[in-house]
């Protein structure tokens, strides 16, 4: 993570300062990638989510009034983009890649193999049991440490809905492990 993001840096990025926007990217990209990877379960899709998120952040910075924390706003965009990518994946078998991606790059295979191994872990298999809404709530709570109130604001849902989704998610996981 780079330097902390303050209002001045957000202001500079809003005015088109690419260095300031890059600082915002370096600060939040890991978080976005982590959440996206667990939501969409594939590194290629997660990278697409990261791109979509930061392009949306760049477009939306002009209208970002600071009424919500930048972090909360980025979480919200990440979850929405992940859900969109999941929907698209159901519709199209092939994922369209942006310019600059070289599928023939051998480093892709090596990295994909390592990641694939990680993705086959028990925990990932468990997460795959959850529906996207439950997964989003549980990840924001268990992984990102957001409170119920923060999750509710991030996802624009009622706090009781957050509680219910987390409860259902844990019940699904307990059942899957034969503990319920």
């Amino acid at each position: 993570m780079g330097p902390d993001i303050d209002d001045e840096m957000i202001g500079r990025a809003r005015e088109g300062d690419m260095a300031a926007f890059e600082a915002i990217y370096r600060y939040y990209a890991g978080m976005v990638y982590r959440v996206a990877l667990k939501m969409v379960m594939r590194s290629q899709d997660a990278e697409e989510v990261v791109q979509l998120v930061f392009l949306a952040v760049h477009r939306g910075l002009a209208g970002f009034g600071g009424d919500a924390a930048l972090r909360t706003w980025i979480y919200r965009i990440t979850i929405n983009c992940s859900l969109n990518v999941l929907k698209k994946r159901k519709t199209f078998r092939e994922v369209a890649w942006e310019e600059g991606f070289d599928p023939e790059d051998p480093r892709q295979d090596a990295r994909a193999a390592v990641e694939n191994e990680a993705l086959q872990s028990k925990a990932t298999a468990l997460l795959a049991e959850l529906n996207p809404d439950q997964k989003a709530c549980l990840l924001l709570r268990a992984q990102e440490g957001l409170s119920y109130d923060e999750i509710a604001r991030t996802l624009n849902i009622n706090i009781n809905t957050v509680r219910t989704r987390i409860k259902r998610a844990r019940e699904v996981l307990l059942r899957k492990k034969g503990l319920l």
Partner: protein
Amino acid sequence: MKCQQIQDRLLTDLADAELSVTDKLVVDEHLAGCSVCRAFLASVQEVDAQIAAVDGSGMPPERVWENIRYKIEHPSHSFREKARNWLDGLWLNFRPAFASTGMVFAALLGVIVLASPVLVQKERALAKADHEMLLQLAYVGDEGISLSGTDRIGEGTFVEDLL
């Protein structure tokens, strides 16, 4: 509290540190005397630990940033791309408005669907009444012809007077 209520709390508020101090005391007291709920809590903690163990894979590859920068510095001028960006922006900013408009349309559609059988029934009843009135008029007309030679219906008698 019963075990079921306690376990509901263990699945959410206790696991996520959202329990009030008072409620936490109640739950702790129950846990101290209930081995079933203690085992349940251990299961919840086990699952949570497993989920938390999946740590992030660090930063995305550098080419992701390069692509983002390229797209920002060379915005697409294709109509399709612009339309997509515009629709994305519209969706991101006006999603609640779309949702409420959709609900209003759904409600209107519901009213129309529910009301249509009533309207059809009314229309049929009116058509039936019209038909019966026409039959009566024809009958009176026939009677009028057959009775025209008698005094029962005099000249200048209107059909409406007979109904």
